[in-house]
């Protein structure tokens, strides 16, 4: 299966504009013909079809998905976010909770 932007849009129910947005956001990346035209294969069409379902099931927005894609592609960002989330609790607070658990045991 090799579909142009227009055909892929008709096939999946998204607008051509949305397809370009999804490409810019790094979410659904069509191949390019030597002429520069976008080509959507089976994988991309399946991604486009399941995208609506994914949004409905988990209540995530496209910007959330775009950020999730960045987390997969940028190890530095992933580490920084992980550290920041972990940093919500300090080592001392963790230590105090551990000792409270020990005393309760």
């Amino acid at each position, binding site marked *: 299966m090799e579909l142009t932007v227009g055909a892929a849009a008709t096939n999946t129910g998204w607008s051509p504009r949305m397809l370009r947005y999804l490409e810019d956001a790094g979410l659904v990346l069509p191949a390019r013909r030597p002429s520069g035209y976008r080509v959507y294969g089976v994988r991309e069409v399946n991604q486009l079809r399941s995208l609506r379902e994914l949004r409905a099931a988990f209540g995530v927005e496209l910007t959330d998905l775009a950020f999730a894609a960045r987390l997969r592609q940028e190890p530095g960002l992933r580490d920084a976010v992980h550290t920041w989330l972990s940093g919500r609790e300090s*080592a001392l607070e963790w230590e105090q909770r551990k000792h409270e658990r020990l005393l309760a045991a």
Partner: protein
Amino acid sequence: MATTKRYDVKDLALASEGIRRIQWADRQMPVLAAIRERFESEQPLSGYRISACLHVTTETANLARTLKAGGADVVLCASNPLSTQDDVAAALVDEYDIAVFAIKGEDNDTYYSHIEAAVDHKPQLTMDDGADVVHMLHSARREQLGDIIAGTEETTTG
């Protein structure tokens, strides 16, 4: 120096900064350095397996080095996932050939899998800060209790 031991640290590339900081701390720990020197010649811990579950920081790094210098086969895991210094963990593995299981910010499952890795070492001596290793030995690993000679427990928060 590459190690053949099992380990789980964030990134071995952090080792050079860890070495620098461990050595700096070592210069402020003259008593431990003197003990290490004595251990190197006397080898009092030769043949003993030690599992230590402590804050993975420059200070405990020098303690682990000292135990190893005394002949012990040491495995170190974190007693608190948020105090681990990833560069120190990397240096212990890469430069000092000590098995470390600790990653700053590790989730609960990883934290306990690292304690399990330390217990898998089949220790004869244990060192705890918060009783994680002895707790595992007295619950999930009772069959290993016969191997235990002694254990230490310290507390850093009172």
